[in-house]
């Protein structure tokens, strides 16, 4: 067990055709879990958020044990204080932008995140009265991200957050995320090596339910060969 890690997760979840299992030590900063569809990435996030109970599991987040199946401990998602952004369809359709963010703010731990400040900081001031269906895909994801941050989470989980966005919007969102200077562990799961390369401080490779590699950003380069060189050239340009 990596005692230095802000988050340590170990679990085993059995499906009829696949078993997802592994040990993951997430540090503060960006931890990218990279793998193809069906490799178990989303299972990892759902187990971490408390939305899925694994057969076996242990989760320690910033010193607090949130799950330990060997002792019958399972903290429900409501008590975990973990922010989550799904791939799409995050926003509550009956609430406008401001109300969606207030929805999370109401349950934040009282550290005093000012809603108006957040809206201005992330350029959402002009959209605050719009309903989700009146926003573009990028704007919806941005609101979902701001909402998760407004919750003052101790950890942030992003499930393929940019995969439904076009490339330009995706890059803007990545810049926004990196510019937010988050001091918490952020776990991003993606199947896109570009996202992994641009975001990852640490990268975890998953295939068929298992972790098959772990390392720094260079891991993406090594793993994807020529594509890795292209990524590096792109990042330097």
């Amino acid at each position, binding site marked *: 067990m990596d005692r230095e890690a802000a988050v340590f997760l170990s679990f085993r979840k059995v499906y009829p055709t696949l078993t997802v299992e592994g040990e993951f030590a997430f540090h503060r900063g960006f931890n990218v879990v990279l793998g193809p569809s069906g490799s178990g990435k989303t299972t990892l996030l759902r187990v971490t958020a408390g*939305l899925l109970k694994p057969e076996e599991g242990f989760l320690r987040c910033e010193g607090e044990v949130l799950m330990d199946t060997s002792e019958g401990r399972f903290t429900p998602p*409501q008590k975990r204080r973990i922010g989550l952004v799904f791939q799409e369809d995050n926003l509550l*359709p009956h609430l406008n932008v401001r109300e969606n963010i207030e929805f999370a703010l109401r349950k934040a731990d009282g550290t005093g995140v000012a809603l108006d400040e957040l809206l201005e900081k992330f350029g959402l001031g002009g959209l605050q009265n719009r309903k989700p269906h009146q926003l573009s895909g990028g704007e919806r994801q941005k609101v979902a991200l701001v909402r998760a941050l407004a919750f003052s989470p101790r950890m942030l989980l992003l499930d393929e957050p940019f995969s439904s966005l076009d490339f330009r919007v995706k890059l803007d969102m990545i810049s926004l995320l990196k510019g937010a200077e988050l001091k918490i562990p952020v776990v991003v799961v993606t199947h896109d090596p570009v996202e992994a390369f641009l975001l990852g401080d640490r990268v975890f490779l998953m295939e068929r339910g298992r972790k098959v590699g772990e390392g720094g950003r260079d891991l993406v380069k090594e793993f994807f060969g020529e594509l890795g060189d292209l990524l590096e050239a792109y990042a330097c340009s």
Partner: protein
Amino acid sequence: MVEALLLSLKLSLATTGLLLLLSLALGYLLSFRDLPAKGLLEALLLLPILLPPTVLGFYLIALLSPDSPVGALITALRGKPLLFSFEALLIGSLIYSLPFGVFPVRDAFQSVSRRHIEVAYVFGYSPLETFLRVVLPNSWGGILTASALVFAHTMGEFGVVLMLGGSIPGETKTLSIYIYDEVQALNYGEAHRASLLLLTVSLVALAVLSFVRRGWIEKLRYS
């Protein structure tokens, strides 16, 4: 005729209001709780659609008659029998329209995105808070449909009403019974007028609910 119309409206509104509350509770249980024999419960709730109103009415007479233990208890508590009273009509209407209230509400609850429910959980909302703040506000379409169906079904109710209430003016003589009585007395003109009134009131009520429902859906619809 006006008296019969007012009684029909009173019965329909009371049935709609009470059945909505019952449907919200049953819809919640059927959608979000692991119940033993849920399939059997759903089949029981659907039975009033299959049973002829006379059969339903007959069983309710057997249950509520002062000769039965339940009926005897109710008679002792009320000081008079329940049968042939407005309350008996209300009980009959609630059971007769039960599936029309429960199933649209259940379907509306089940069509709320699972993801939105999980969003609420992750942000610290309990299942009850999530129901009130996420599920209910996104289920108005189904709730309004249930209201329209129950209201219309009760306005046009005949068999159960006749079995349980007879035809006591001001107490159990609803508009549909009034029409039947007028036809039996060969007063076709009055039966025509009463039928037109029943048709108009039902149509207006349904149109208003449909208008409200459409407005609600437009408000939420994704582009």
